[in-house]
């Protein structure tokens, strides 16, 4: 590359001792138990069935048998990590603002929010303290000047190519950017999605149903409605297939 003439040369030690540690710290190891994995993936079953419902490869009998089976399992909570819910849980959570005991729960939610923030602050402090002003990596594609404040936070050099990324910016990129990757790898509702902690206010999260099995129970119930909708649009790909084939060979008037 010709442009390398005016390029920076980064000590490979920076890669080994700064770039990798920051990335590593930002990616929490995820180990799910089998039941948790099953719960997380149960929705995919019905999504797969629904995806092809309008032109389903399955004849009516088999389609309904799978659809009914899934609907029943969702209704009964078979796929929940901790097994089907007990009968004595209330159908709808009471309004937290009218119930004094629920206020405690809300405060607890805010407390966990704060607790979740602490490790992030510690990591950011660690990076800022040890690696302030480090240039870590060069992006393989050119960018406009507009990205400078995003990629070179903590380094005040007006002339440096925007492609160079500073340590603090690398932290932020990981913090927000890896979530998409997690979602891709671990499915929609995984625990590693830290952007939820940042973007939502404490009140919003407590209102949007407490995390955990109940959350999935709700999702499953909603998925049941989707399944019923899919039953409505269902048609078998085998309907009229003989006419389609005959027409291709010009055997139909």
């Amino acid at each position, binding site marked *: 590359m010709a442009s390398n003439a005016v390029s920076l040369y980064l000590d490979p030690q920076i890669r080994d001792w700064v770039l990798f540690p920051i990335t590593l710290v930002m990616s929490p190891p995820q180990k799910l138990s089998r039941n948790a994995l*099953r719960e997380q*993936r149960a929705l995919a079953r019905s999504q797969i069935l629904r995806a*092809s419902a309008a032109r389903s490869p399955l004849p009516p*009998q088999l389609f309904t048998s799978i659809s009914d089976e899934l609907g029943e399992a969702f209704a009964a909570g078979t796929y929940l990590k901790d097994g089907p819910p007990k009968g004595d849980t209330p159908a709808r959570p009471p309004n937290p603002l009218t119930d004094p005991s629920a206020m405690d729960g809300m405060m607890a939610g805010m407390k966990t929010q704060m607790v979740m923030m602490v490790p992030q602050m510690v990591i950011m402090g660690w990076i800022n303290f040890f690696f302030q002003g480090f240039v870590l990596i060069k992006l393989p594609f050119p960018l406009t000047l507009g990205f400078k404040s995003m990629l070179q936070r903590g380094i005040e050099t007006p002339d440096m190519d925007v492609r160079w990324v500073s340590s603090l910016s690398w932290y932020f990129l990981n913090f927000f950017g890896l979530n998409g990757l997690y979602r891709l790898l671990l499915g929609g509702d995984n625990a590693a999605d830290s952007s939820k902690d940042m973007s939502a206010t404490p009140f919003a999260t407590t209102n949007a149903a407490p995390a955990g099995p109940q959350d999935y129970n709700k999702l499953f119930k909603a998925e049941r409605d989707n399944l019923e909708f899919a039953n409505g649009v269902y048609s078998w790909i085998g309907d009229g297939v003989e006419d*389609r*084939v*005959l027409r291709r060979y010009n*055997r139909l008037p």
Partner: protein
Amino acid sequence: MSVSSALQKLASYRVNNNRASQEVFKRGSIILKSGTSPRGEEGWAFLEQLALAAIDLDRLDVADVCIKQLADKFPESPRVDVLTGIRMEASESPETVLEYYQTLLQADSTNAAAWKRRISVLRNTGRIEKATEDLIQYLDTFYSDPEAWLELADIYITNRQYTSGLQALSHALILNPQNPFTFVQFAETAYTAGDLPLSLKMYLVAVDMIERDIDSPDSRPPSSLAFRAWWGVKLCSRHLVDSASASSPSNTAVPKNLKAVDELATERVLSAYKGEKLAEQRKLVEKWISLN
């Protein structure tokens, strides 16, 4: 044969999921002996590939060399653990291997590869019931694994449980609705189960799918899988033309223009038997068709 061209060939085998153990072993062991095994990611993938090929050819000494290098590099890797298990399957007793996989699964109950290997060992040693049970449990966790659904269908079908086989196949179908091979397999199973109307429909779906992008399909003989599907159509329609009241456990209706389908199928099947070489076969097929 230069090392780099051999490496290229092996990489293409990996990309296309081509097992070709003989070839892989021949080229791979040259590279291994020359000591120029590639560095980096490709090198490790190469070692894994060579190890599997060596196990296939019962050259366990070579496999051990490869696995040793991999295990030194990735001591905790589940992938290497499973590779070690496959190597053990080649020489150890099934009990030892099953125990080994059990310990892997205890360490991480979501190790899908180890789970699948254990199911395969169970099936190969004749413990069909346990294998089926395990496989169903596996699929309950990892639903979207069409390979495993096909394996389950295969177990059912070889045990003549066709209804269950069709159910397993239907999951493979919705996971892979674009794959005509699964449709043909479904149709064949329905045929064996005696559900001819359903079988006919599924064969036709497969034909429709394969020939969708061909401009004028009647101008050329059917391609390999289409040929098989057309044969299936012919087999079904021949029976159905004979007996109008065909039983169908799935309540599938017999097509109205069955006659036209039957005629077209006859033509398509015969169009594949062209030329001197196939004259003999063509005569046989024609005779079989005229027996109607």
